[in-house]
């Protein structure tokens, strides 16, 4: 599959995530949009990894492992994302407990 298709797909997914972050006020939805953006990047990494692998195979040689780093990177991103979600959700829960709202506009302490 031409790599351009993957890039365009991942970019579209990413931009949908951006628009979600910009247009929604619910902290949980914003958080989900960030996950969406992470996944777009993950998909692109895997696609690039397969692209490099295909190029290495076409260049000849057996047992090449070119591209394996890309997929390991995706693995680590997932690890970090899982940790991030657990901490982030804990923060949102705490915020809800304090102000009884998940509205990000409610948190404008940065102004001062």
């Amino acid at each position: 599959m031409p790599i351009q298709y993957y890039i365009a797909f991942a970019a579209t997914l990413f931009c949908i995530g951006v628009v979600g972050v910009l247009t929604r006020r619910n902290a949980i939805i914003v958080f989900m949009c960030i996950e969406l953006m992470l996944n777009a990047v993950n998909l692109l990494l895997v696609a690039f990894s397969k692209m490099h692998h295909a190029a290495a195979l076409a260049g000849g040689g057996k047992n090449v492992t070119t591209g394996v780093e890309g997929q390991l990177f995706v693995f680590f991103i997932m690890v970090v994302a899982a940790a991030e979600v657990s901490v982030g959700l804990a923060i949102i829960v705490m915020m809800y407990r304090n102000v009884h709202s998940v509205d990000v506009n409610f948190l404008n302490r940065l102004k001062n």
Partner: protein
Amino acid sequence: MGTAQILFWSLTALALISAIMVLVSKNPVYSVLWLIVVFFAISGHYILLNAQFLAIVNLIVYAGAIMVLFLFVIMLMNLNTETEPQKSIWMKFFGVVAGGLLLSFFISFVISSADLKGKSAQLKEGEIGLIKTLGKALFNDYVIPFEIASILFLSAMVGAVVIGKKD
């Protein structure tokens, strides 16, 4: 058009539509459900790229653990359409315009780039996505990052408990 292409396009369409539905759903619970559909579609893409390990991990970690966590939190807070805060129409408009501009730049870049001409991703075959290959690499070259990731998890767990604790 072979099976792979049909699968690619249908999975792409599914992922994009579901992603848009995540945004437009008024009820946060629906958003979570649509997001799970997006993750399933992306996992399908992984399988198409013969990245089996990542496809499974994606399903287990994202669609399974993380999304259930989201669902739990939403239900815990009893969020629904009525309590959903709405942004002003202007902020929404500007957000969509800004995102659309960004997307148009990415697309124009992809179309005009000379470097990407003739490159393509390998579908259905290739062995690097297999657990065997990844496992060898992970436990030989990347064993230290792997172990550090476990420490990260531990600290995240402790952090979540500390933050979420009622004081």
